[in-house]
């Protein structure tokens, strides 16, 4: 035994005699993880979260979360002697007088955008591949919680500098609170410690931004990862991959090196962006005052859809019995997002109810093989894109020389027309792709080689595909629609007739499928050819 082995052995022995960790570690260091680029999306989210913790901690050393009035006296000349809040002044201080401060601010903001973008990409991957199915419904719920908290955390974060742009965002948030029926003005006054803007809101959201929500993130991310670990990662279908195994690389050393290395890459990319790409230059906006505003007021992209919804809302208000209900705020600001996020959270349970599928699933779906779900996803994405585009309608108007009224009307109509259209088109495309798969398996690959037969006929040579490919293209689940049994064995009508009928109809739509090619069919065609 070499000197080095003796030392390592000594440490390992010390730890194991006190924890008994050897057995557990031995098993888990060999833990197998399947490899696919799309599995990195969640990793990007995790790493950007770590970057946010690191850069955020750096920023807290100088940031002063206070709305007390100060006169600015720093090295940014245009704002010399201007009255502003301590929060804004300290953000200027970080940007201009702390070495690396601006860089850290910019990395923090870029990492926040990357965090949200990768969460959304990860969410879409999980949705379109059906990774949320049993036994992973709980992890889907945690994920929905994380994306929701991410939106709130991001909003609070860019509100902290108390510049003219972010203050306007807070003003809008206050108006949403104020619009809540019955208790709205109380909630707003409690949150702001009196009339808007008050002097307590920034310190309060600071605590939420740096303590409460990061704590919640840490807890949820930990459970999220522990469940991935415990339930083992899903894998894409393919030769040798089954519901009963997991094929990939062991944690040690390959995954440690790849995952650790990937953290470095993500950090490097955000640092590069922070170094060269200016983001949220708060010194250009000036301090917040409710009487002013900058044109082209835009939230970050993950809030843009919400802003777009509010913008496209019709001017509806109810005035009755001495009270006012602002539907123009409640519907786009609270009701529609509430329905969207509740629907998203419940989707695994809805799909399982419709399909009647209660099995465990560890093999992922190719999106085309589940046309209904894929179409639903495309429909939701289209809705989000229309609202997001409307959230930037002022910028689009100025950049493309269009009238803002045109864009607004296009969005108002588009938000109703385009999502169903996306559903129908996507479903058709999925079914066509299934038929193309079927043709490929049964007829082989078109080689483009033309052969003249002895009797003068021209045929194109088709090359049979490999058994691996044939398996990958035909091994997916062939769903069966639930049949609606309206009477039991004795001819007595079953209760809940309407619900059952609806379920059967949705189930039929959900099971619509081009049947996968089979070996029998392939053999029949083969014998027919010759």
């Amino acid at each position, binding site marked *: 035994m070499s000197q080095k082995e003796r030392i390592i052995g000594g440490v390992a022995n010390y730890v194991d005699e006190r924890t008994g960790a050897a057995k557990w570690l031995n098993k888990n260091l060999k833990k197998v993880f399947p490899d696919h680029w799309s599995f990195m999306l969640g990793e990007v989210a995790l790493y950007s979260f770590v970057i946010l913790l690191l850069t955020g901690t750096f920023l807290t050393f100088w940031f002063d979360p206070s709305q007390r009035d100060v006169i600015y006296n720093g090295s940014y000349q245009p704002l010399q002697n201007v009255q502003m809040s301590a929060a804004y002044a300290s953000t200027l201080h970080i940007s201009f007088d702390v070495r690396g401060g601006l860089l850290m601010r910019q990395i923090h903001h870029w990492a926040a955008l990357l965090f949200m973008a990768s969460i959304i990409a990860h969410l879409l991957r999980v949705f379109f591949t059906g990774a949320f199915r049993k036994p992973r419904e709980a992890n889907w719920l945690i994920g929905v919680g994380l994306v929701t908290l991410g939106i709130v955390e991001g909003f609070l974060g860019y509100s902290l500098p108390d510049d003219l742009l972010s203050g306007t965002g807070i003003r809008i948030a206050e108006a949403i609170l104020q619009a809540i029926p019955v208790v709205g*003005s109380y909630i707003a006054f409690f949150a702001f410690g009196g009339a808007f803007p008050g002097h307590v809101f920034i310190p309060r959201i600071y605590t939420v931004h740096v303590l409460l929500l990061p704590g919640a993130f840490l807890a949820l991310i930990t459970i999220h990862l522990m469940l991935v670990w415990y339930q083992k990662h899903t894998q894409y279908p393919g030769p040798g991959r089954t519901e009963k195994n997991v094929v990939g690389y062991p944690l040690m050393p390959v995954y440690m090196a790849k995952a650790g290395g990937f953290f470095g890459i993500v950090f490097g990319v955000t640092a590069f962006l922070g170094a060269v790409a200016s983001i949220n230059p708060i010194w250009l906006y000036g301090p917040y005052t409710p009487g002013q505003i900058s044109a082209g007021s835009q939230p970050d992209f993950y809030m843009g859809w919400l802003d777009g919804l509010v913008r496209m*809302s019709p001017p509806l208000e109810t005035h009755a019995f001495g009270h006012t209900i602002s539907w123009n705020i409640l519907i786009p600001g609270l009701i529609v997002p509430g329905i969207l996020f509740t629907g998203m959270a419940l989707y695994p349970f809805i799909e399982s109810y419709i399909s009647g599928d209660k099995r465990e699933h560890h093999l992922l779906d190719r999106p085309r093989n589940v046309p209904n779900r894929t179409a639903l996803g495309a429909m939701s994405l289209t809705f989000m894109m229309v609202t997001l585009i409307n959230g930037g309608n002022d910028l689009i108007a100025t950049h493309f020389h269009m009238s803002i009224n045109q864009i607004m009307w296009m969005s108002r109509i588009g938000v109703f027309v385009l999502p169903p259209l996306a559903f129908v088109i996507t479903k058709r495309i999925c079914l066509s792709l299934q038929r193309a798969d079927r043709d490929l398996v049964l007829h082989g690959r078109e080689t483009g080689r033309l052969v003249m037969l002895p009797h003068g006929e021209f045929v194109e040579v088709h090359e049979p595909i490999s058994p691996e490919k044939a398996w990958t293209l035909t091994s997916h689940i062939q769903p069966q629609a639930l049949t609606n049994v309206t009477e039991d064995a004795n001819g007595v009508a079953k209760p809940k007739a309407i619900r059952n009928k609806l379920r059967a109809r949705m189930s039929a739509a959900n099971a619509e499928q081009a049947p996968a090619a089979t070996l029998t069919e392939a053999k029949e065609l083969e014998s027919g050819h010759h």
Partner: protein
Amino acid sequence: MSNNLEKFSDPGLPEHIHRKADSDARAEKKAERQVAILFLLSAAGTILAIGSYIFMPQDVVIFIPIMGNQNAAQLGLGIGIAMATFFLGMGAVHWAKTLMPDSEVTAERHTLRSEEVDREDFVATVKEQGGAAGLGRRTLIKRSLGLAGGLAALTPLVMLRDLGPQPKKQLNTTSWEKGTRLVTDPGDRPIKPSDLEVGAVAQVLPALKTGEERTLENIGKDAVLLIRLNPVDFNLDSQRLSWTHDGIIAFSKICSHMGCAVALYEQQTKHLLCPCHQSTFDVTRAAKVIFGPSARPLPQLAITVDSEGYLIAQQPFTEPIGPSFWERNSA
């Protein structure tokens, strides 16, 4: 699909294809060198970062094509950190991909559901151990526990009460009173009608009483926009016309939708536009909403001039300004 159709069978994992570095010693050496170069690039990045931090003056600006003028210290530090982390990561990944074992491993996956016997044991345990507490039988304990638990959760909610005062009438009132002078913002100078040309816009605030300070809360309610039109352009009823003076009309600048400052005035169309959600108000028709999500016109402030010829408010606002709220009582 009928079940008697024979399906394609699983051919199993494809045969492993070895990499060049697995068999060729020269390729292996080359890969090793590549990894080392990546790690060295990372080290160079750290040196650049620390060097820029310590030695580069903060006010040196360098021109870089495409990116334009950049602060050299910030750029050196940022690029340095980016190189240090990025190449460290690339090195590790390249190492994993070229030199670490790349044959895929298959591990068993077990159904998560416990064995039937364990499940039964579990139920028995819960029944026995839980039954020992007798919660099911002792309804008095159960109910009093529920009551106590529910009440205990109330305290933290109640204790949030002092977060802020009750709104009372604060959302209904502003600082504008009968006879309050309109003053410029910034500057706090009283205004005469002659200070505004036709087509001009000005933001004004109520004159401060002696000893009063201007707070952001006040600005958030009091900000008013003055616009001077040619009086023939007005399309107002007689009351609203009497609230104008010499073609000057005053509206609350706080949007009746969500409270942003309605700051964009189009002189040609005489429309006011809120940059937040594009509610558009027609100045000639008392800020009637002609487009966008706002459901109400901007409240109009009745103005006139005092004996010295300065603009003053005839009366307070006749309705609450800013976004709607539950207690708001006016159509």
